[in-house]
């Protein structure tokens, strides 16, 4: 009996540890995403071109009619998205409230849907790729996978 209880405690500890690792991953990738979209947002506000590398389509992608929704550039929404994931993850680490995992997972679904949409836009519609946008797709994919793992473990 005592032995069993001990095991559960150990399991609990293991679970908490794994959740911490997942949270740190979320923090890292949401921070990367935050930097990426912040760069694009600042460039947009200053109306200066981004330093395009690897792919040469930044001007086309960022200048296309798809780059804005409700008059605001997509990078602004991305910025809010990554900031929300970042803040929620810290909130989770601090409070350990399980429902926050649910929120993060919900947000990450939204993120991955947008990422897939942007990927289709860049490769099939605009036919130009922008490294910052692809990096954002990468980040939101990782965030989705990590929060999916976290959500399933719950």
């Amino acid at each position, binding site marked *: 009996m005592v032995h069993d209880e001990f095991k559960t405690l150990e399991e609990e500890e293991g679970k908490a540890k794994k959740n911490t690792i997942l949270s740190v991953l979320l923090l890292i990738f949401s921070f990367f995403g*935050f*930097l990426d979209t*912040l*760069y694009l947002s*600042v*460039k947009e506000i*200053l*109306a*200066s*071109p981004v*330093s*395009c*590398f*690897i792919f*040469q*389509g*930044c*001007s*086309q992608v*960022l*200048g296309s009619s798809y780059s804005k929704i409700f008059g605001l550039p997509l990078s602004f929404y991305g910025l809010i998205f990554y*900031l929300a994931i970042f*803040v929620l993850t*810290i909130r989770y680490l*601090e409070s350990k409230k399980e429902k926050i995992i649910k929120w993060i997972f919900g947000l990450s679904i939204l993120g991955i849907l947008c990422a897939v949409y942007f990927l289709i836009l860049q490769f099939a519609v605009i036919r*130009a790729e922008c490294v910052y946008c692809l990096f954002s797709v990468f980040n939101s994919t990782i965030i989705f996978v990590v929060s999916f793992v976290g959500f399933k473990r719950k």
Partner: protein
Amino acid sequence: MKNKKLKEIILWVVIAVGIAAVVVAMIVAVTKQPSSSLSQGISSGDWTEGPKDAKVVLVEYSDFQCPACYYYYPMVKQLQADFPDQILFVYREFPLTQIHKNALIAAQAAEAAGKQGRFWEMHDLLFEKQSEWGESDNGIGYMIMYATDLNLNIDQFKQDMNSSDVANKIDNDISSGNNSHVQGTPTFFVNGKQIQNSQNYSGFKQIIQNALK
């Protein structure tokens, strides 16, 4: 309990300050990007369009295969149409051969067409048909086809494309671009100063208007 609350407040204040610091650092980093100046003035070897005594000299370092250059191509045309007597436009070769397999032969083709007095016609044709020849495995074939369309002497054209003269002109442009800190294409210089490419036509026009003041 009170202590915990205090800790929580401190944590969030630290995070908020941290985020604000990152935002400020990004703004500083972006605005501090140095703009460089043109290392080599306009010479008789340059391809120019517009009056020689124009008030604004617009130099473009460009790659015929680069999608962004294609994007700016109509903007430059529009600028030339809007300021016919005030802009001297200069085109310099900056083929990004590592990422664009046909960029160099396109530059050679334009220079070779120039030898027969048709540089700008080839320049326009290459941009307008970029999607056709850009990723083609038969880039040379397309160049010869365009040369035929422009009624060039094909034997001469082929010879010129591979001539050391054309190679030197392209190398010279690339090195003057490197000396002017050109890092990508297109890079524009207005009266010798590198400009930040604006993402739309009105921004570009504004830059020219400012230079005219």
